[in-house]
């Protein structure tokens, strides 16, 4: 299976059913994923911070770095590839409080709030999410099926299924 890596502050959409979207080491960052099961369009964005700078600086920054620009970016990219907003299945992962974040500005929590704020603004609601906590997550989404798997540094793996917000029983994942 082809792996399409989404880097930090990056995002992308695919219609290649044999591909897997992957993003690594989500600490306080959040990965938002969209899947249209009919059009078989999948998208993923890995954002770092909740809010983009003031508008006059916006032209100089990458939209996927910030929740308020990353989420509409991903939505529009998915729609441009033929996804229908009404069919979209939405997943989210990340937003952990990382060990070296001792400030009162808990970036992970702020990123989670920004996620929910942006989803609400754009008329989306997460069907499944694994956010918060302290664990660093790696996320994979299979483009053809829309299935999502999470993995921790210790090697624990589980599938994130819609409507089931807690860890699912371990299933065989399509990669080693």
């Amino acid at each position, binding site marked *: 299976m082809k792996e399409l890596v989404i880097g930090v502050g990056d995002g992308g959409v695919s219609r290649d059913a044999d591909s897997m979207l992957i993003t690594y080491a989500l600490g306080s960052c959040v990965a938002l994923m969209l899947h249209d099961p009919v059009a078989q369009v999948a998208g993923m964005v890995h954002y770092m911070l909740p809010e983009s700078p003031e508008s006059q600086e916006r032209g100089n920054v990458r939209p996927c770095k910030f929740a308020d620009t990353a989420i509409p970016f991903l939505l529009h990219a998915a729609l441009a590839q033929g996804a229908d907003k009404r069919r979209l299945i939405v997943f989210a992962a990340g937003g952990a409080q990382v060990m070296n974040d001792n400030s*009162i*500005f*808990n970036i992970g*929590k*702020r990123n989670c*709030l*920004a996620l*929910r*704020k942006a989803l*609400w*603004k*754009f*008329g989306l609601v997460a069907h499944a999410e694994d956010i918060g906590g302290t664990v660093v997550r790696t996320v994979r989404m299979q483009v053809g099926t829309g299935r999502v798997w999470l993995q921790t540094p210790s090697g624990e793996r589980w599938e994130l299924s819609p409507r089931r917000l807690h860890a699912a029983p371990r299933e065989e994942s399509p990669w080693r």
Partner: protein
Amino acid sequence: MSDHDLDHLLAGAVDDVLETMFFSETFGSCELEPDLTAIEAFVSFSGAKSGSVSVRISEASARSLAASFLGESEGSLDDAPGSASSLRTQQHALRQHCYKDGV
């Protein structure tokens, strides 16, 4: 319940409302700026403990909260009614917390 515990409880209730329905985080209380043009909402409560909790914010912050609550851009909001109504809604939600925790 001590006054300190009550303050902590009320602050937690405010945090919960702002985070859950306004997607906004608080960073603790602060001194009131006397010259600040602000919108204020307050909820009174009575029982084993009596008093009130108030939220006082600038018009700009109220507009931001209103936009978050409604899922709109700030620029698309009407003026005062949106912000004031948003605060009234917030006031209702604060009242829920006062009752819920038996205060």
